[in-house]
C-alpha cells in the first residue's frame, strides 16, 4: 500500500463565496487507483471541493498538490493541469454542434495536437468501450441521458487523464439509465483509474468506492472504508444522513 503514489493531496483548503465559508480546512489525500466517494447533503460543499480540484473554482487558502506538484493558479498553466485531470458533469455539457465522435476528438486534436487519424482511431476505441460504437456520427440531441453521459466520459478519457472527477454524474438521469453510467464508471475503476466521485448512489459507493468521505457544512465529518461507515458510522451527523437517504 505504501508504495502507491499520492495523486491528489489537499491541505487546509478554504473556499469562500463572498461571505459564505463553503470549504473549511479540508484535508484529503487520494492515492493512485483509489476511488474516493464524496457524499453529503446539498450545500455541504462536496461539488465545490471537486471543482476546486479542477480549478474551475479557485481556493482562497491552503494547498492543492496534483501528482507531487503543488499547483498555484497564479504561477501554473491550469490548462496543462486540466489535461491530466478529467471531469464529468451532472448535465453532461456535450458540445451540441458536434457529433459524438467530434466531441471526443476535439480536445486531443486541438489541445494536445494529436493528428486527426490517430485521434479518430482512439476516439472510436473509447466510444466502443463505453458501448456507443454505433453512434459515432450522431448528434448529442439524439441521445438518451445515459448515452450522453457515457459520451462525456469518453470525451474526458480521450485526453488520457491520470485522474477523473465525477460531479453527480447520474443525478440528471432517469432512474432506468443510471445503471449503464455506473457500470461504465465501475469498469474504469477496475482498470485502475484514480477517481473522485460526488454521488448520491450509495450502492455504487459501497461496491466501487475505496474511501467514503462524508461532508457537512463545508467540513469533512467522517471518512473511512465505505462498508464500515455504512455499517457503523461514528459521527451522529453521518448516522442521520445515512438514515435519511437509505
Amino acid at each position: 500500500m505504501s508504495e502507491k503514489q499520492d495523486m491528489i493531496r489537499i491541505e487546509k483548503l478554504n473556499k469562500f463565496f463572498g461571505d459564505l465559508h463553503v470549504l473549511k480546512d479540508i484535508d484529503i489525500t487520494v492515492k493512485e487507483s483509489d476511488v474516493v466517494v464524496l457524499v453529503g447533503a446539498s450545500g455541504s460543499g462536496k461539488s465545490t471541493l471537486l471543482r476546486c480540484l479542477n480549478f474551475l473554482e479557485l481556493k482562497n487558502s491552503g494547498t492543492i498538490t496534483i501528482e507531487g506538484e503543488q499547483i498555484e493558479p497564479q504561477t501554473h498553466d491550469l490548462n496543462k493541469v486540466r489535461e491530466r485531470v478529467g471531469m464529468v458533469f451532472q448535465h453532461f455539457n456535450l458540445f451540441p454542434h458536434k457529433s459524438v465522435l467530434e466531441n471526443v476528438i476535439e480536445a486531443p486534436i486541438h489541445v494536445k495536437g494529436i493528428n486527426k487519424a490517430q485521434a479518430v482511431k482512439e476516439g472510436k476505441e473509447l466510444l466502443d468501450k463505453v458501448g456507443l460504437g454505433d453512434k459515432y456520427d450522431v448528434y448529442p440531441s439524439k441521445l438518451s441521458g445515459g448515452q450522453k453521459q457515457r459520451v462525456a466520459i469518453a470525451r474526458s478519457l480521450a485526453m488520457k487523464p491520470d485522474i477523473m472527477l465525477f460531479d453527480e454524474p447520474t443525478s440528471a438521469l432517469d432512474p432506468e439509465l443510471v445503471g449503464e453510467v455506473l457500470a461504465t464508471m465501475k469498469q474504469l475503476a477496475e482498470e485502475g483509474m484514480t477517481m473522485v466521485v460526488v454521488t448520491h448512489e450509495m450502492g455504487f459507493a459501497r461496491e466501487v468506492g475505496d474511501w467514503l468521505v462524508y461532508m457537512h457544512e463545508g467540513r469533512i465529518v467522517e471518512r473511512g472504508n465505505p462498508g464500515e461507515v455504512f455499517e457503523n458510522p461514528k459521527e451522529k451527523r453521518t448516522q442521520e444522513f445515512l438514515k435519511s437517504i437509505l
Partner: protein
Amino acid sequence: MCANILRAFTFHKELSSLLAIIDFFKTFFSSSDLFLQGLWLTVQLTAASLIIAFFIGLLFALFKISNIKILDGIADVYIWVVRGTPLIVQIFVLFYGLYEIVELNAFWAGTAGLAFHNGAYIAEIIRGSIQSIDKGQHEAGRSLGMKRGLMMRRIVLPQAFRRAIPSLGNQFIIGLKDSSLVSFIGMQELFGVSNTQGSNNYDFLTYYLIVAIYYLVIVLILTLIVRKVERKLAESD
C-alpha cells in the same frame, strides 16, 4: 337618364383606372434598365457594408465580453454614438468628414457609414447570443484544457452564430433598406434612381411605387435565404 350618365361615368372611371394600371406597368418595364442598375448598386452597397459590419460587430462583441475595462468602454461608446445619432447624420459626417482625410468616393463613404451603423447593432446581437451559451459549455471546454481563445473559436462562437441567425437576418434586411439613405450623398442606387426618375418625369408617385416593388422582391429573396440557412443548421441540432 340619370342612371345612364352614372353608368357611363363609372365605366369611364373603371377604364381610366385600368389605363392607369397599364401605364404603370409600361413605365415599370421601360424604366427597368435604370432600376436594375440601381438594384445592382444597392446589392453591392449592402453586401460590402454588411460584410464589414459583421466583422466590426464581432470585434466589438468580443470587446464587450473581454472583461478588459478599456475595451468594454470603447465598445460602449461606439454603440452609444451609433444608437444615439440618426443614420443619415452618420452618413453625412463620414462623407464630408472623411473627405478631409482621405479621398473617399461616395460608394466607399456610403459603405463606411452603413457598416459603422450596422456594426453596432450586430455587435449587440452577437454579444447577446454569446452570453446565451450555457456556462457548462465553457466549463466543459476548460476541463479539457482548452484555452479561452480556442474555446471561443471552436465551441462558443459556432453555437452563438447559429443562435444569432434569425436576428442577424433581420438586421441584414434593415441594413438593405437603410442603404437607400446613401442616395442623399449622390449615389444612384435603387432609391436614388426613383428620385431622379420621379423628378425628371414629374411623376414621383409612380417611381416610388416601382421602387417599393423592387425592395419588396429583394427583401423577400433575402428572407427566404435566411430561412433556408436556419433550417439547414437546425438539421444538425
